[in-house]
């Protein structure tokens, strides 16, 4: 082969590798996400009076997405796809809240952007904890005591919001302890279940449920109960007891329906909200109307009347998304959640220890259940319960908690990556040792 043809072949190879590099899925995906939010924030900035916040967000949010998706994995071998999806959903929440802020005199969008930054820090902390803490024996007891105290705190000094006494004020900021205790619950359940110690996790789960019932935080109680039951089945494979737990939950629901008037009312609204259109069914009717008015492609970003829906920024934010972007877009958002959950399950099933597997599975299930409860409620599949839409709904505690859950999954993913790297290292060492001549090995 002549020198020229060799050079040509080399150039072709270099071009091919450059093309392959450009085709890397992470870059493509992150670029698309960045472009989406850059154009969206830019567009919203032109809605009404020009505000520099919109321009700032058009730059800051894509940069934050880029940094947290591409740079965090340089610190830990984290899962980029999971990061990209979580970042996308968080940024979508910031976008929708900022859009609804325009002309309303509120600043939820900017606040949510700040919480988003805090959520990234929480995620890093959770990754760090899962990755580097090896001796959980003592620590888990401290976590358990701290979580129990934190959960019970609203009973003493809590404030009531939307019928539930589950908020406390710390330095002028409202915090919902039950959101933060989710992380502790997962750690406690995973640790004790993996060690086959029944009593500690059972006692904590019962205590948590009782406290949540006392606080009348039924949505969170449902998430706690379902996650505990799922993890119990995942760790023991005991179908009869799990079935018993399901039957018990069903019985409790029936009992609650018969005993409490507000539960009866909620079910009645769910069955036919149009009868109560002007009173208690107003919220669900407005949600359904918003989704219908959006149609397939939506009314357009920043248009429509999202503020007509009560608590449009937390429980009903999915209806706002459907109104502005359309039902197809809404379905694609759901697809993102599905991919996130599938990814979480993959990470859990690749974990080498049952503690890590249960932790990742629990976090995934918790996110999945929460998503199902709120989106099912908005779409009138199930009675509406007051929980937030993960990553998207307004609320610092909720966002930090969801990013913490992602951090737990990411921590497990990074441990998996380490284990895999070790396997490769071993196999390569063995292969090299086997193939290298004796003289080279010395």
């Amino acid at each position, binding site marked *: 082969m002549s020198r020229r043809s060799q050079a040509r072949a080399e150039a072709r190879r270099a071009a091919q590798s450059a093309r392959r590099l450009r085709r890397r*899925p992470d870059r*493509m*995906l992150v670029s*698309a*996400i960045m*472009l*989406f939010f850059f*154009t*969206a924030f830019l*567009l919203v900035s*032109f*809605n*009404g*009076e*020009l*505000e520099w*916040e919109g321009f700032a967000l058009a730059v800051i949010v894509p940069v934050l997405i880029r940094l947290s998706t591409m740079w965090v994995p340089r610190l830990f071998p984290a899962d980029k*796809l999971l990061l*990209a999806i979580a970042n*996308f959903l968080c940024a979508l929440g910031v976008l929708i809240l900022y859009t609804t802020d325009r002309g309303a005199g509120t*600043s939820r969008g*900017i*606040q949510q952007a*700040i*919480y988003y930054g805090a959520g990234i820090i929480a995620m890093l902390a959770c990754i760090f904890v899962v990755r580097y803490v090896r001796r959980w024996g003592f620590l888990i007891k401290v976590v358990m005591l701290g979580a129990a105290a934190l959960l019970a705190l609203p009973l003493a000094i809590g404030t009531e919001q939307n019928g539930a006494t589950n908020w406390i004020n710390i*330095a*002028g*900021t409202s915090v919902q302890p039950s959101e933060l205790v989710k992380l502790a619950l997962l750690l406690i359940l995973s640790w004790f279940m993996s060690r*086959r110690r029944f009593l500690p996790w059972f006692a904590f789960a019962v205590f948590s449920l009782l406290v949540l019932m006392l606080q009348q935080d039924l949505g969170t109680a449902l998430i706690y109960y379902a996650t505990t039951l799922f993890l119990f089945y995942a760790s023991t494979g005991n179908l009869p007891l799990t079935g018993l737990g399901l039957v018990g939950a069903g019985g409790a629901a029936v009992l609650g329906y018969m005993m409490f008037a507000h539960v009866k009312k909620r079910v009645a609204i769910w069955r036919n909200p149009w009868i109560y259109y002007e009173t208690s069914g107003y919220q669900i009717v407005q949600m359904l109307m918003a989704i219908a008015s959006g149609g397939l*492609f*939506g009314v*357009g*970003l920043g248009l429509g009347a999202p503020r007509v829906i009560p608590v449009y920024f937390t429980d009903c934010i999915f209806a706002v998304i459907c109104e502005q*972007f*359309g039902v*197809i*877009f809404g379905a*694609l*958002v759901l*697809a993102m959640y599905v*991919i996130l959950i599938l*990814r979480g399950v*993959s990470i859990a099933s*690749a974990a*080498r*220890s*049952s503690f890590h597997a249960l932790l990742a599975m629990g976090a995934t299930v918790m996110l999945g259940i929460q998503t199902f409860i709120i989106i099912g409620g908005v779409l009138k599949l199930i009675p509406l319960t007051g929980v937030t839409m993960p990553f998207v709904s307004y609320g*610092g505690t909720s966002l930090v908690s969801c990013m913490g859950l992602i951090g737990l999954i990411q921590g497990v993913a990074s441990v998996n990556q380490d*284990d*895999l790297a070790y*396997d490769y*290292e*071993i*196999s390569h*060492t*063995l*292969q090299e*040792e*086997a193939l290298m001549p*004796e003289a080279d090995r010395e």
Partner: protein
Amino acid sequence: MPSEITDFLSSITLPGDLAVPAEIYELIAQAARYWFLLLMAIIVWRSFRWYRRDRRQAKKRLKLLPDAGFVGEMVVIEGGEALKRGQALPVPREGTLGTLRTNDLCVPVEGVARRHLWFRFDEDEGLRVEPMRGQTASVDGEPFKSRREPLYMAHGSRLYVGKAQLRLRLFAGFEGTGYAPRRDVEATAGTERQDESPEQAQAAATAQQQAMQQWMAQQQYMMQQQLWQQQAMQQWMMQQAALQQAAGRNGQAGDGAGGEEAEPPVRDDSIFMRPAGERAPALPEEMQAAEPTGGPENATPPDEAQGPDLSGGSQPEEGDWPYAPSPRSDAEWEELACFGDEMDEDMTDAAAPPRSAYVGHDEAERAKRKVWDRYFGGGRGR
């Protein structure tokens, strides 16, 4: 705090005359719907493809590294009719043992319950074994008493469960867990040693050293043989490639007139079964000196009684014998000096690395000996 920041930020405004009329914004926003939908579809599609690609890669990886995640194997010593003697059951980091197929270790043997015991690998202690409620098990003759005193299995430990007897062969964790202390053997060995005179002890130590040296020399010899085979094969392949290139250049590629087709060197497996005393043709002097006096490839390491004395309960150091003490006596070893199949009867003395490291079994076997012998199974390579 966030509200203070946002209040401050909101106070900064841009000139109002730059505002876009509402009608124009509406037009742009309605047109942009399709742009956002397109971008969203791309995002979902790329995410899904990425997810699917990773799943596919994970499956490939599993094929390439089928032992990934396993810490060792339970080799069946006695398993009734259901389990053949010598059959290896891969041991994950954690799992259950029982007769049900859903168990990680399915042992359908009389006396074993559906879910009999639970095990978990601890890097410091070994494989922790804990029978389920109402079940019993013993490790190296020591029965399970309570959850406060769990049983730990090390490399070479024997697990007695029902009528089954399994021996653990660890792939990992040598540096932490060492080898099986074999409490039953250790106890008797301790008393015997007390009765020994200093001369006897000295002689025994020398014998141990000699046996070990001989076994190591044998391993080196086999490794060298295998390397030569590999090199010969590589040479032959290179020759073939050169011939084909030459043929192609001369335009004679099709008719095979480029020369005689060279025969590949036949792998001489017989070298591994070479009878005692027979020498390989080109064995270097130092290797000749160390050539074994007999034995096939999978020569079993000498009995622990002949190896360095590790029975004091200390962790094995580098260079120490990593394997579990053999249950056989010196006399039995002498009887088995033919190095037949019986030699590695329970298949635990040949410490095997994960098969996953290799595509072919031969390569695995070859590398197993090279690396494991080099490190005496005592290092994880890092």
